């Protein structure tokens, strides 16, 4: 049984100019021990997906569908139940480490906060636990550093602190939203290595636009385009044999593959084409792509793809 099974998840934002759909009928599951990457261009709804699982979307978001976590639909759970789940069962590593830490609290306090909330650690035990966490993430002189404020750390260190906060209560599922954004190449590589080691036997939902990060960390990858999953499969296979034209385009646009960007722009939310959403940018589009909306179909060995060519 999967740890988190999402079925028919749709998210819409209500705004003054009407309702804007952002995620459309997502079906998605993570099994215990899997590390799934969700990749896509900015604006395709990746972050919204992570936030909707955490139920942290602003109040003008309308969520439908279900997300079964350990047999419970967390989309229908009460706020109190969610507070029990957040941080303890499902933890999140927020993107942009520069703003994700409260500037007026010491990092030690911020890490300890989750522990006090969800565990019975108090007093010295709490401090020992925080020190252990910091040490495990390779932060030197933890006793001294836990008294410091976020602005006193470098970007890479802050990222580690965020990871420490997420791992504090030993959660079942970690959602990492762009964990390496804003870091320079060297620090990024270090952070990835660290993430890989600490996530070795954990369940991870990695949200990223960076193919390298995904291939380094994820066992499975889902590709998101204009609010829909267009392709899903084990990372290695998916990267080696991309099936969907969009995935192919993505891989071709990475610098290592020679940087051939996909022509055109991804459609703005609410203005998606009727047929295949990728159709206007697709180099191998067919006539019926314009009118028929493809569905996500199983395709061979544990892979799924949303393209009329594979029908």
């Amino acid at each position, binding site marked *: 049984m999967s740890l988190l099974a999402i079925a028919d998840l749709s998210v819409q934002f209500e*705004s*003054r100019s009407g309702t804007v759909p952002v995620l459309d009928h997502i079906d998605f599951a993570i099994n215990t021990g899997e590390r799934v990457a969700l990749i896509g261009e900015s604006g395709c709804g990746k972050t919204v997906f992570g936030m909707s699982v955490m139920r942290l979307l*602003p*109040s*003008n978001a309308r969520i439908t569908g279900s997300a079964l976590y350990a047999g419970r639909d967390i989309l229908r759970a009460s706020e109190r139940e969610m507070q029990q789940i957040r941080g303890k069962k499902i933890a999140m590593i927020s993107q942009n480490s520069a703003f994700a830490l409260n500037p007026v609290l010491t990092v030690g306090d911020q890490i300890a906060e989750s522990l006090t909330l969800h565990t019975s650690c108090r007093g010295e035990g709490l401090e020992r636990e925080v020190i252990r966490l910091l040490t495990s993430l390779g932060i030197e002189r933890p006793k001294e550093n836990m008294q410091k404020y976020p602005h006193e750390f470098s970007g890479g260190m802050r990222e580690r602190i965020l990871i420490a906060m997420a791992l504090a209560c030993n959660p079942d599922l970690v959602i990492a939203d762009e964990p390496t954004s804003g870091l320079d190449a060297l620090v990024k590589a270090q952070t990835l290595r660290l993430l890989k080691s600490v996530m070795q036997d954990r369940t991870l939902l990695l949200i990223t636009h960076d193919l390298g990060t995904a291939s380094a960390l994820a066992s499975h990858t889902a590709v998101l385009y204009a609010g829909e999953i267009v392709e899903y499969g084990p990372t290695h296979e998916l990267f080696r044999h991309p099936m969907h034209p969009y995935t192919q385009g993505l891989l071709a646009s990475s610098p290592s593959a020679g940087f051939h960007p996909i022509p055109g722009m991804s459609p703005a939310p609410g203005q998606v084409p009727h047929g295949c959403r990728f159709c206007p940018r697709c180099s191998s589009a067919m006539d019926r792509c314009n009118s028929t909306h493809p569905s996500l179909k199983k395709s061979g060995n544990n892979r799924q793809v949303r393209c009329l060519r594979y029908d």
Partner: protein
Amino acid sequence: MTRNILLRVSVAILFLYFAVALLAPFIAPYGATAIVGAPLQPPDSEHLLGTNNVGQDIFSQLVYGSQVTLIFGFCSALLSVSISTCAGIVLGYYGGSVDEVVCRVLDVLMPIPIFPLLIVLTTFFNPGVVQVSIVMGVLGSIHGIRLIRAPALSLAETPFIEGAKSIGASDLRIMSRHILPNLMPIVTVKFVTASQHFLVMGVGLSFIGLWDTMTVDWGSMIQNAYSGGALSLGLWWWILPPGLAVVGISLALALAGYSLEESFNPRLEVNRI
């Protein structure tokens, strides 16, 4: 939706006030200071809002008074915002020692209480409408300079300004064509709120009677009524109209200011539907 409607309504009210001020000679049935009837007559068809203790028509005074009060609010706001925008941009753009010196000077000027200083400075001239608005505008700009300087400073360091510099644009051109337009939202908001602030301050000054009592404006009208016994006699038509006129325009300006601020700073309207 609400914001736009609010903004439109308040702009419409402001236009109404301006129209009244501009067309005062056509709207007002009598002159502002002409004695046209017996003192303290209640409203009737001849005198829409009755007469004051000198026998002047209150409605006509109200109409003519709008000119002075509007000049007061808007001229001093215009002056104050222009000074603080120019100075703020120049300081923010050039920075360095000039910036340092001016900031220190501002620091020293800040503790001097504005209101008494205003009264002191107006005595250097005859306390007329124009003089008081000028002094008020200049004094009011002291606080504004810092407000404009901060975003100008951060703008001056952005890549597109660097870019403009690198293609050899002159400093003047960069400041007027590149920095100023980017500051326009904050300047506009500042102008609207400053107008409201100065308008109310002007009316207040004239209410406590610290300048020309012969000038017909809403503040001196309130002052006349207040000191002339309007409250104990219950002569509502004498004291209420100028007060409500001030309240009206102040409210319109305040709402316009808040609406503009929200539209320029979308964060303020999070979740607002």
